[in-house]
């Protein structure tokens, strides 16, 4: 039995521990916003946050997520509305087909949390694992910069379980619980 929290909700799954997290999320939990693109960690469509760290869920066995907190695209908005990145994606009209965008947004959320005011090089290195076959890279970059400009303050990812925010140390990539507000 694998236990984890997705978007604050507890799940217990009785599945083969080798099943990639992606398929557990899509087929067993039933959240389909996280996408399958390549299955070999090459495209980023399946990006989710595992204890706050962006990972490619297509190559992570679900066993590795036992006891973890997972955030998917469905879990980044809160009751006050869309995450600033989601709003920026609408404002900049980023998506074309939209299939890559869950992954793009999850990578961008993590980037901005770690580096609220990223340079072009920061954006390139954080986002180059996410392929956009519709070629919306310029808009993705603009979306990220719009959020950075809108709030030079820390962008945080809302954790629906306890209302706390998660922030990770850019140097170590380690995520710690912090009190927000």
């Amino acid at each position, binding site marked *: 039995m694998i236990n984890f929290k997705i978007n604050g909700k507890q799940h217990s799954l009785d599945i*083969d521990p080798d099943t990639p997290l992606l398929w557990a999320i899509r087929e067993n939990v039933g959240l389909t916003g996280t996408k399958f693109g390549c299955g070999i960690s090459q495209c980023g469509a399946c990006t989710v946050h595992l204890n706050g760290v962006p990972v490619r869920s297509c190559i992570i066995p679900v066993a590795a997520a036992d006891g973890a907190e997972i955030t998917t695209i469905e879990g980044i908005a809160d009751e006050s509305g869309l995450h600033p990145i989601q709003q920026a994606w609408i404002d900049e009209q980023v998506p074309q087909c939209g299939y890559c965008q869950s992954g793009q947004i999850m990578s961008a959320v993590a980037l901005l949390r770690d580096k609220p005011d990223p340079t072009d090089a920061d954006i390139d290195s954080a986002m180059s694992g996410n392929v956009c076959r519709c070629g919306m890279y310029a808009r993705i970059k603009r979306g990220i910069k719009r959020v950075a400009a809108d709030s030079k303050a820390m962008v945080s990812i809302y954790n629906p379980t306890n209302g706390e925010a998660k922030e990770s140390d850019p140097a170590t990539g380690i995520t710690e619980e912090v009190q927000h507000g």
Partner: protein
Amino acid sequence: MGKWTRRGFITAGVLGGSALIIGVAIRPGNRATALSGLTTEGSESLINAWVKIDADNKVTAIVPHSEMGQGAQTALTQMLADELDANWEDVSFMEAPAEDEYANWALGKGFVLGDTPIPKIFAGSVDGLFIQVSKAMHLQITGGSLSIRSTGVYGMRVAGAAAKEVLKEAAAKEWNVKTSELTTDKGIIKHKASGKEAPYANFAVAAGHISAPRSPILKSPDQFTIMGKSKPRLDIPSKVDGSAMFGVDVVVDNMKIASIAAAPVFGAKLEKVDTSDAKKMPGVVKIIELENAVAVVAEGYWQATQALAATKITWSKTDNDQLNSDAIYKQFDDAIIGALEKGETNTDISTGDSDSALKQGKVISRKYRVPYLAHACMEPMNAVASVANGKCEVWTGTQNPLGCKYDLAAALDIDASNVTVNNYFMGGGFGRRSIADTAIQAALISKALGAPVKLIWSREEDTQHDHYRPAVVSHFQAALDEESLPTAWLNQYVDKHEPVEAPYIPYSIDNQQISYVDSPTHIPFGPWRSVDHSQHGFFTESFIDELAIEAKEDPYHFRQKLLSHHPRHLKVLDLAAERSDWGRPLGKHQGRGISLQASFGSIVAEVVEVSLIEGKIKVDRVVVAVDAGFAVSPDGLTAQMESGVIYGLTAALYGDVEIEAGKVKQSNFDDYPMVRMSDSPVIETHIINSMESWGGAGEPGTPGTAPALANAIFDATGTRVRKLPVSNYDFNIEFIEQNEV
């Protein structure tokens, strides 16, 4: 009640007792030749546009195009809403389903009307010519950049304008005033003299009983209020929160999941299967043998793929088991040379006397080639199917829902009336999703299983079982006179598909000989973003550049000189040059290149700037100028240019589907790489609204990218790229290719 206009059929009616519906069926005749390619038989095709105005004044545009990301549905809705003078905030769209009890998907059973029968008002339109023409059609394609220039111009605008006219007429009757005294604005009809005003909805029922106008008056561009504005796309909000439903997200009751392996060599058949290990694996439900594929059905996708990997499959031998890319390219070269010797090429264009022009001038000969390419849609091919009791229902993302329905009917040998296709968002189409192969597999698996099934192709399957952009070899000769102006243009290439004009050039050269020869291979092919323009754009715009170099002329000025009779092209070229600051000195290992390509009714010029950094080509900047006649949504057109450029760059830099032992060598994004954020250039798009006939947006950005890039690389390095992709060249060694491939 409906009436034929010069181009189409307009009809009005009342739905559910309170809503006005206006339908426009398009009969393009021979003037709109862009549409003629859509018919499978006969010479006419129909595309319908519909508008519904509800009791609460909400307007629904019913759009016969699917959404693969190009924003066409929003642009089409804008066109309708503008002519209708609707309030944009009250406008939404829905996609017409694949029904064709004549081509009226909008009124198909179970749609709009629920299960109520087709209203009487349409009875007159359900037979006669309508049924004939629609029977010949079975096509509802989103592709060929057709959405705006055909459906939009001939359908959506007419539907909006017709609806406005019948509403006004109904209001005039009720208020007892002249129609000419009424004005419309944001969904309200006003009568200034009496101060009366009321929403459209108040007149919906009365309007439904009014005979639709024969040819409603369309707005002139200065009257546009919604067209020409960058309206936020209606589909985008669902694409930022994970709620957008793609084909792969569909879940139906009792559904199992399937993974498939088709014969790696195209044309091979399944010979034998050893399932002894696979069938014992957890979650496996059934292993199904198709004629040329094996599918494992399991409880989950991962279980299905694991068991598929453990299935030992033997495929039949074929004549192509030893074939590789080099042999195919040689076959193409030989075919051209052989056909030329025998005088057996098929002529595209033959003007003047090219042979004597060659004898009198300086002759330049070049050969180019481009490889097979996969579409690599972000969402791998997939379909959900449920086949039972002689009926088939499919849930998938398709560019051609109606064609998919008929292909399914044929594959299952049932009547098309027993097939239902439910269309979903597509994670990329680019032409790939106009082919129903995956849906057919899913249906056959479901039939064999006796339960609904979701078939998901692995990325490897997707890369290795595409319908590829064809590889092409193209040979050129030209003659330059004493003033270094071209006097002859000879071009012979293999395999012609669509559109016919793809290899044609806009440049004034008196003597032209353009022809092709068929040289079939066993590789399946299909439309790939911009179709034949994707190859010929590279060929012709590279060769004209080489002529400029031979003429010792600036490639931009050389083109300029040859375009005096094409002022529209010239303007686009000039704009790209000007905005890129053509002529500005560049650094030592930098270069720029230009291209000009008209396709799908739009003219696009691109200037690409590159740097050579440590033996690698870095694309710094792409400046695009585009004349699509009129940009319904300027930001939408800009986005399509950006998208088309990146698609073209990926192909030019990396795209290479190689054939090895009869099968495709590449398999996933590790060996079939994509342009990523880190190697994507700055892209600047400049739009000209010439108000000439409206062109496409989705495809015209792609063809000019590869040649402008190759021309820039020559400028930066002295190396002329004549065989794509660029990644096959080693820029660590500086060399200049001579006059042959």
